[in-house]
């Protein structure tokens, strides 16, 4: 495969697509598929055939606004239809070339205007099971350019210049990490993609793997070329069967096209990728635990250093990045580091995908430039809190993150700003809570999660999270005392400082951040034995309520 051949494929796909007068794209992502977009697609294909019009019905990945699903987009006019079901197929096909169907049409300009799509540029536009669709969108061009025109150091330089930081949550500069692995000795190195999206409430990585799997593979191949690796692993959660099957198909197609395997693009570069399944353990999102799991062992973390960049999989230098990080690589190589660095804020470059869920009107996937205000994401893109309730907090970073209250919504989103607020960027889950959520109860929920997910290797995490849970449960039941609060804080500090891995070190974050911003709710529970949101069941007699 050479660049010329790649262009030929792209050209033939474009010619093929040009034969059709209309394209009807049906979102087949999990959220839409669970509402019958599979039958919808079949019905549309049948209706298109009967009508005699020149229509291409295409299956695509996530289009974004999941709450409006099942979604259909008609191109070239870019008309969006929401809440479509199979019975609407005839009406949609009949409307092609005429006026759109008013009952189904939805205006998403406000939702999309503030978004900038880099990682999700193809999602909703291509068929994820067709490699040629991806190639037609400049796919694999970056890989072949890197192989034929750039040195490995040149690639690393470009990534460093872009200012890309790890999208898994930690925010470690990607270029620096690549440089470390490239400098490590040894002829056998590995590239690993972390697709163990353990944060309950986030699904960006799933959507990327399902909607645009080749983008991840291309990013991994470029990384392998840059650091000198020959073998890659994608670690995916077993809870994402569709992602696994899409990636399997994508890998097979890439091998068939000669974009993976030996002597890629007639260069001495060899690279192949294997899929490894997770089996339900949150701690496996931690890099050393993930490596243990790939090796077929229990997923328990190891003390660092040595870092995986020096001694990782089977003791060899290993590069680990998140799905979204790899998804950013191809566009950076294609468009240059400066292009990427022009987006975002000073120390956090580019864009970030967030999974917007909870008590918000437009749930779904959004991609925004770094530095955008939280308020804009929630009120403009997300459409605000529905049903007349008031906004209380937004939770970022999952069980490792914190809750951000309403008065801090005007702060721009970046790694450092979120950290300063006591939360973290995390992988990108954003869960909105309104006045019906009790913050003490939410903190208890996260601590319970960390308690059950703790691998048990180090004591601060294993015993500490259990003690936190007991304290919080007492408060939730109305049996807490003010001394419990002080005890809770000192316990949090201890766990934070003495735990072995990220799970333990960040487990107190939900407690600390709710204590900081919603201390009055804790006090209500303790002193007045009352849950302001009416969530907790108080066993103690409610004598103070008068």
């Amino acid at each position: 495969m050479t660049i010329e051949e790649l262009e030929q494929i792209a050209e033939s796909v474009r010619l093929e697509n040009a034969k059709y007068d209309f394209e009807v794209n049906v979102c087949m992502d999990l959220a839409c598929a669970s509402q019958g977009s599979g039958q919808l697609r079949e019905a549309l294909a049948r209706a298109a055939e009967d009508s005699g019009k020149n229509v291409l019905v295409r299956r695509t990945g996530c289009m974004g606004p999941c709450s409006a699903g099942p979604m259909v987009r008609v191109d070239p006019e870019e008309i969006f239809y929401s809440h479509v079901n199979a019975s609407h197929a005839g009406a949609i096909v009949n409307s092609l070339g005429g006026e759109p169907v008013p009952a189904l049409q939805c205006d998403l300009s406000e939702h999309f205007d503030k978004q900038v799509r880099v990682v999700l540029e193809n999602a909703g536009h291509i068929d994820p099971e067709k490699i040629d669709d991806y190639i037609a969108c400049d796919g694999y061009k970056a890989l072949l350019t890197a192989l034929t025109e750039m040195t490995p150091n040149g690639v690393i330089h470009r990534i460093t210049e872009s200012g890309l930081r790890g999208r898994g949550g930690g925010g470690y500069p990607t270029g620096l990490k690549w440089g470390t692995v490239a400098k490590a000795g040894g002829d056998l190195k590995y590239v690993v993609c972390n697709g163990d999206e353990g944060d309950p409430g986030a699904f960006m990585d799933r959507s990327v793997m399902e909607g645009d799997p080749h983008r991840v593979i291309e990013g991994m191949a470029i990384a392998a070329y840059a650091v000198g690796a020959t073998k890659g692993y994608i670690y995916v959660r077993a809870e994402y069967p569709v992602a696994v099957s899409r990636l399997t198909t994508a890998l097979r197609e890439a091998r068939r096209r000669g974009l993976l395997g030996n002597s890629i693009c007639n260069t001495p570069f060899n690279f192949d990728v294997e899929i490894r399944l997770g089996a339900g353990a949150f701690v496996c999102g931690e890099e050393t635990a993930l490596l243990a799991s790939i090796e077929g062992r229990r997923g328990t973390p190891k003390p660092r250093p040595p870092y995986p960049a020096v001694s990782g999989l089977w003791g060899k230098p290993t590069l680990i990045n998140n799905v979204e990080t790899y998804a950013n690589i191809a566009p950076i190589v294609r468009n240059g580091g400066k292009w990427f660095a022009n987006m975002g804020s000073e120390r956090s470059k580019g864009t970030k995908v967030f999974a917007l869920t909870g008590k918000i009107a437009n749930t779904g996937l959004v991609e925004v430039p770094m530095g955008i205000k939280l308020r804009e994401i929630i009120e403009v893109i997300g459409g605000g809190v529905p049903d007349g309730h008031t906004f209380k907090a937004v939770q970022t970073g999952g069980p490792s993150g914190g809750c951000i209250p309403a008065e801090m919504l005007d702060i721009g989103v970046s790694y450092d700003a979120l950290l300063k607020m006591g939360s973290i960027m995390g992988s990108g889950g954003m869960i909105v809570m309104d006045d019906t959520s009790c913050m003490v109860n939410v903190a208890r929920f996260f601590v319970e999660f960390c308690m059950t997910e703790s691998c048990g290797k180090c004591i601060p995490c294993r015993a500490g999270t259990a003690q936190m849970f007991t304290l919080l449960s007492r408060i939730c039941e109305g049996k807490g005392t003010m001394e419990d609060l002080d005890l809770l804080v000192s316990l949090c500090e201890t766990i934070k400082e003495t735990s072995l891995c990220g799970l333990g070190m960040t487990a107190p974050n939900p407690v600390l951040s709710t204590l900081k911003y919603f201390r009055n709710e804790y006090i209500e529970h303790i002193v007045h034995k009352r849950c302001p949101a009416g969530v907790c069941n108080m066993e103690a007699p409610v004598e103070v309520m008068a």
Partner: protein
Amino acid sequence: MRKNGFARHALIETLHTVQSAFGCLDDDSIRFVARSLRVPLSQAYGVVTFYHYFSLKPPGKHTMTICAGTACYIKGSDKLLAAAQERLGIPPGQTTEDGQISLMTARCVGACSRAPVMLCDGEVAGETTGAHMLEQLERWAVE
């Protein structure tokens, strides 16, 4: 196992395959996998018990899984779970005595935009209500 060249590090893959074929991992199958891959039995058993996804007990005829992810929790999945427990008379992770229905919780299936989510025999159903779920359980109780 052959697909992975009997590699020791493919233990988790192999266990996945066995579980999807037989529904659970009983003692015999764990022993067999450990012997075939030349992995210590303790390591195989350790892996099976470490990961939530593996089950040592056979599942019921139908499985009701309720997502316990954050987004689902905020939208009231705890109430769904409580209702299911009351209807079936079993805690999560157990199967009813007649072997009809297993009640499970999931960590997160990634359909958070449609929270709360339940999985009926693996099929995702979003924006679930208690009535909807109980109806499904009633149907399964006799099927």
